[in-house]
């Protein structure tokens, strides 16, 4: 049993903290509710309650909801909550007034006190099969993202240079960036042989883009029924 020493949780120092690479530890307190991906809870201590189909989500993210129910649940209560997404790396961010757009499948949890909204990524939805939903969060509070593999943060820089991202690898970006879809079709690739990179998202402006080292964008939390 002692062999597990070193894996005990560290004392609470912040609302959200990493426990290892792929687990987030959230200090819950009543009055400070949390939205988390349905099915992401791996453990909790204390008195925490979950509401699977919160009305707030229905209001804000009505279009995101499919027949399977809402992708978000609301957690409230007092205690420690541990979330994970099938071993993906977790990144916790204290927004502190800033804003971030997060790919729906890469969003793990966020404070309910944040302003948030769901939008379909313009120009792209019709190409990317499952539809690319992104959640824009802003305000004072914490967000936890997942990334399959250690992510990389790239400055978009400025000027005319655009940054092109494989939509399957996209995790998050600064909402003030301009986004457009790009189809990299060329005459040669029209004849049945693509380069494999047919659609990209082009970002321009001042801000960052977070990308994961994997094109696996399947929503594991959603596959279970």
């Amino acid at each position, binding site marked *: 049993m002692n062999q597990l020493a*070193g*894996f005990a949780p560290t004392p609470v120092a912040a609302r959200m903290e990493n426990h290892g690479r792929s687990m987030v530890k959230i200090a819950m*307190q009543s009055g400070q509710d949390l939205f988390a991906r349905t099915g992401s809870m791996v453990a909790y201590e204390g008195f925490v309650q979950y509401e699977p189909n919160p009305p707030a989500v229905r209001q804000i993210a009505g279009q995101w909801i499919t027949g399977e129910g809402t992708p978000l649940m609301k957690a409230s209560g007092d205690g420690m909550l541990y979330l994970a997404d099938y071993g993906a790396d977790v990144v916790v961010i204290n927004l502190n*007034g*800033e804003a971030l757009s997060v790919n729906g499948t890469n969003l793990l949890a966020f404070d309910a006190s944040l302003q948030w909204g769901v939008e379909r990524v313009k120009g792209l939805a019709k190409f990317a099969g499952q539809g690319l939903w992104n959640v824009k969060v802003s305000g004072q509070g914490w967000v936890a993202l997942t990334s399959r593999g250690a992510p990389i943060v*790239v400055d978009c820089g400025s000027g005319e240079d655009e940054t092109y991202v494989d939509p399957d690898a996209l995790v998050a970006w600064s909402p003030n960036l301009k986004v457009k879809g790009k189809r990299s079709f*060329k005459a040669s690739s029209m004849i049945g042989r*693509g380069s*494999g990179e047919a659609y990209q998202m082009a970002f321009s402006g001042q801000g960052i883009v977070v990308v994961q080292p994997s094109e696996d964008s399947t929503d594991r939390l959603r596959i279970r029924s």
Partner: protein
Amino acid sequence: MAREFQRGHKAKISDLTAGTDLYVGVQIGAPGLTFDISCFGLDANEQLSDDRYFVFFNQPKSPEESIQILGAQAGDTESFRITLDRIPQQIQKLSFTATLDGAGQMSQVGPGYLRIVAGGEEVARYAFDGSEFTTERAVMLGDFYLKDVWRFAAVGQGFDGGLDALLKNFGGEVAEEEPAAAPQPQSGGAPGFAPPPGGAAPAPSFGAPAAEPAPAPSFGAPAQPAPAPAPAPAPAPVAQPPHGFAPPPGGATPPQAPAPPNVHGAPTIAAPLAPAPGQAPPMPPGYGQPGQPAPAPQQPQFGQVPGQTQPGQAPPPGYGQPPQAGFPGQPGAPSPYGQPQGVPQGVPQGGGPGGVAVALQKYREVPTGQRWTQQNEQLVRVDLGADGSPVLARQGSMVLYQGKVDFSYKGAGFAGRIVGNATGQEMQLMRCTGRGQVFLAENEAHLHPIELQGDAICVSAENVLAYDESLQHEVRRIEGHGIPGGALFTMQFQGTGTVIVKTKGTPVVLPVTPTTFADANSIVAWSAASQVIISSQVRLRRQAFPGHSGETVNLQFRGAPGNFIVVQPYEI
């Protein structure tokens, strides 16, 4: 990320982790040698005043279980669990040591480390190897020590004697009659040690404050049993044995010092007897006085630092430890995984630096001017345009690019397709041309850029992520009996440029020796100069699954020294 410590580095443990339940792993090894790794719980005088705090294979834990030895695991030769907030107050320092069992010397040890794991993450690592040592038979690897707060120091100090000498140095064997006998082993053992026992070993790394020596000389000379409280604030009433408490200059003043009066009967010379920390203690005149309990342990081995706490006195402010648990008399069973955190009181909200940029800082892209740059284990960046030559990459492996880059289909050509189809060594490639940076990754696979400078390497096609178009590649055939398809195929790259090899999981790179074998399904790459021999052993696997032929193909490699093979922990 783990902080890398070098010999002499030190840090507050609170800076490394907020946790107090720590796992300390030590890896040390040498061919044919065995090591005893132990943890000494020392008092303020650097002495093992309570031998229940000598935690080693025969005594797996301290009374209140704040120090436990866990055995070999997870790549560590020995490991400990340390619960800092349960360590009793009289223990001021934990010294992690490794001693040779049997013949040998420390210069023979291979690369090893001492690491601290907390909260599921490695937070500190002190790596060492045999080149730092010579003929020593023991080594003090690292210390946890209490100086206002618990700190960690990478010591890496060799020690000529073995475990016995180490024990003696810490006054361990004589713990029972410590007051009278402690000086004996102290001085007797001295010649045998490489470092003088006066704390030369630890002193440099701990930076003993030089303030101490000052009062000493004036004081050591008279050798009065009971120095008048008058001279200097330092020595006077401090004498009480168990604490080698030297009032820090300016810090604690005499009124605070006189703790329990006369515990051991006779008043003693006060702590700062040693002329200077870091010298072997010469026998001062007063040393041999009868009835003088324990001068030796009191010398300020570690440099009595300001604010050093001592039993019996209020802990200094930085200590901040509620005295709830872990006193010697109270063997209360600790909960196995540390105290359940329960409901946190007052969740910190928005503490610390905030903002997206801060949180993501560690994931920033690393700038270098090279053509191929590894961003992290799973991502590489290629700078196109530096020399204009295109890169071939597996289709779909681009995750992001900046600049003007074209991606086009790279056909293998007619002959290439025939070969590819027939051998299974075909690649769906795209050609990246233009100017800009392309980030490549695939399915969290670990990536390894291998730079070829005229040499050649064999890689199985499914493990190639990208390569410079300037490299020549061809399909190579390995023949042998008993292979399901009649032969094995592999890609050989040759020329000048870089190949990115991907592996699932952390691979192992083995040197080619007369007896190097690998599973044909797990082999990723090998240097092309080594010769491959099929040594298939046809046998029935116990868990042969339906459709599996039950044979395994082993490849044997032969070659001159310098050749290597790469094997991944995943069988495709």
